[in-house]
């Protein structure tokens, strides 16, 4: 199952998508129009590039300080958060526990989680874990 579909299985996730680092290709699922998903993709790509540039500056002051390469970023709004890891973005509600779950799934995508977080996550959601994952 694609990471976007996995994210959309989590209650409270509004929309999730994937954008290209170059060009204007994107895909998404959830409560966004195609035009808004296009805008979100551009916004997330722009911010990700900016933050990568900032981490280059950090590393020039403290090499191996543990920042570079940047995995992503989070903006915590009043009721909604935007999470980006790699080239995946996710809009989710600020319901208790949700942000940590979303970040666990998204960081697993870039190989930062050693355990099997997807099995753990689906076990929390309920239902047939094997059917949903495999």
């Amino acid at each position, binding site marked *: 199952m694609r990471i976007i579909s996995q994210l959309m299985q989590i209650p409270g996730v509004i929309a999730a998508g994937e954008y290209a680092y170059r060009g204007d290709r994107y895909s998404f699922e959830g409560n966004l129009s195609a035009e808004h998903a296009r805008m979100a993709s551009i916004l997330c790509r722009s911010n990700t590039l*900016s*933050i990568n540039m900032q981490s280059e500056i950090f590393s020039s*002051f*403290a090499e191996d300080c*543990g920042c570079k390469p940047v995995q992503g970023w989070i*903006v915590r709004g*009043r009721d909604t958060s*935007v999470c980006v890891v790699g080239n995946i973005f996710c809009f989710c509600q600020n319901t208790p526990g949700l942000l940590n779950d979303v970040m666990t799934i998204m960081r697993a995508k870039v190989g930062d989680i050693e355990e099997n977080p997807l099995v753990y996550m689906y076990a929390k959601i309920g239902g047939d874990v094997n059917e949903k994952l495999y």
Partner: protein
Amino acid sequence: MSLDRLMQVPGVLAAFQYSDKGDLVAHQLREGTELTPQVLDLLAHTCVANMAVATLEARGWEALTGQAGFEPVQGFSLVGLDWSAVVGSNFGVVVRNRDADYEEAFSALGQCKS
């Protein structure tokens, strides 16, 4: 809420306070961390800038799409390779990614007063 309290956030490597311009006002570092006050100062400036950009984007997004719930921006996190910087309301923490509890960090920062 103080830096001492922020140092109790799970996985925290550093806690810091910064001015509206991003200058480092106070900080505490976990013993053994490779972070330095200079990196924290850069992080603070970065996070102030990113919070401002996020506010601009949130405001624009709400106006363009009609969706609400983004403004006011409560916090921002930069997720690095080994650690994440989480900031909000002139305070910030750096937490190890493997122990990171982002909600706890945002919640603790939300209780900080300058």
